[in-house]
């Protein structure tokens, strides 16, 4: 028997060496013109928490075919075609083992490959671009501490014109404006942490926010759900609208789902969200789950019915029709 409250995973505070690393780098930079930017020192242990919150493994591991951790090849069907995730193990030949810290940072924050190619936003750099430098450095340290796996990448199978990668240049120019996450002074720390977890690391909006025909998330429909989710699934409205969203859910209902995968009516989530619970949210700290709930419940409710309306008199299933249609 297990208890459902996982042992709190504490972010290491960092020893004195780490705490003073950044100022030391800054000091050296002041003396040397060769120094480009003050690069945060990565801490693999802290990086594991970032890795879990950012749920890298769900997409970069081909679980359906017993693929090795982070070796890529997982198919992701979208309205734009089928993407196959790349190998991000530290294998130098087929993975990202040759990447510099700056290569890694540029991929996550600017959506650019080391050779300058622009990534499709199926890789959610549109969310990750808000990451703190420390989290980026820690994440790289953690991923580089994992076993390298030699496995060549499979090319994507996309519909025209998305099959032309160069279209990503105007796309990024028009639609992608990297913005670092900044805590809102109007909100308390818990809600700010929740915003960082939901919008930056957890990249929840990449599935829960509808896109326009250019594949750009609709800002005014933030987390309001969509019927054309990845793998063709219906993705529910998770804004606190009581009728079409999760407005009837308590913070406890949200954290319970994030731990166990159970909806308030006793059914369980499956598909993409099942993976998110398994690989990510069930492994977060209690505080982080509470932060997510606090943030979601602080959002402006958006009336947006996704899928069939739920039955009258049904328990709160949160905008998803009948959950039990076996």
């Amino acid at each position, binding site marked *: *028997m*297990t*208890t*459902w*409250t996982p042992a709190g995973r504490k972010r290491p505070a960092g020893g004195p060496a780490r705490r003073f690393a950044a100022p030391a780098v800054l000091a050296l930079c002041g003396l040397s013109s060769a120094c480009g930017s003050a690069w945060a020192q990565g801490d693999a242990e802290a990086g594991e928490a970032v890795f879990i919150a950012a749920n890298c493994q769900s997409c970069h591991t081909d679980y359906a075919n017993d693929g090795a951790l982070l070796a890529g090849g997982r198919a992701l069907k979208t309205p734009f075609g089928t993407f196959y995730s790349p190998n991000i193990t530290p294998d130098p030949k087929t993975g990202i083992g040759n990447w510099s810290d700056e290569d890694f940072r540029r991929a996550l924050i600017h959506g650019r490959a080391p050779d300058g190619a622009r990534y499709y936003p199926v890789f959610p750099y549109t969310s990750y671009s808000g990451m703190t430098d420390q989290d980026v450095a820690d994440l790289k340290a953690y991923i580089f501490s994992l076993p390298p796996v030699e496995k060549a990448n499979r090319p994507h199978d996309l519909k025209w014109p998305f099959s032309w990668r160069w279209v990503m240049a105007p796309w990024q120019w028009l639609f992608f404006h990297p913005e670092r996450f900044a805590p809102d002074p109007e909100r308390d720390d818990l809600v700010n942490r929740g915003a960082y977890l939901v919008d930056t690391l957890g990249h929840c909006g990449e599935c829960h926010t509808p896109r326009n025909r250019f594949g750009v998330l609709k800002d005014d429909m933030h987390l309001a759900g969509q019927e054309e989710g990845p*793998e063709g*699934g*219906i993705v529910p409205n998770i804004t606190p609208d009581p009728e079409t969203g999760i407005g009837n859910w*308590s913070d*406890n209902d949200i954290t*319970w789902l994030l*731990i*166990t*995968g*159970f909806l*308030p*009516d*006793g*059914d*369980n989530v*499956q*598909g993409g969200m*099942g993976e998110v619970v398994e690989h990510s949210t069930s492994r977060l700290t209690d505080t982080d789950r509470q932060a997510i709930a606090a943030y979601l419940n602080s959002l402006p409710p958006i009336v947006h019915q996704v*899928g069939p309306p739920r039955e009258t008199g049904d*328990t709160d299933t949160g905008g*998803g*029709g*009948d*959950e*039990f*249609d*076996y």
Partner: protein
Amino acid sequence: MFVLGRRTAGAVIAGAVMMAGLSVAGAADEPANIIKYRQNVMKANGGHISAIAAIAKGDVSFMDQAEDHARAMAATAGDILPLFPEGSDTGADHRSLPAIWTDWAGFEKAAKAYEDAMPALVEAAASGDRAALGGALRDVGQACKGCHDDFREDK
């Protein structure tokens, strides 16, 4: 010579008769009615699960009732397989996947895992320990998921 004990033989025959009876009952009912019936049985389980969850989360303090819900689930856990007779996939909206019938052994195994998770749930519910109850319910959830992932269509 290979001789079955009288008791064993009796049990085998009784089992065969019961199974035949089940499949006859299943075959005689309208598929649409079977689908609705099994959806209601699942809803009932969902109701018990949410009730236990509310107790485990601390939303309500009806710990003395947790065992009743757990026992209700345990008592009906073995009823799941006969809810899916061959041919019960038409006549009403449902999300049962054909894999149920093409991989009956796998389906049986997944249903068994759910049944096997029950004693721990009942025990945790009787213990009155909230964390233990939540943990046992979470394990039940893994069993639900184990079956739903492969045998129920994603929405």
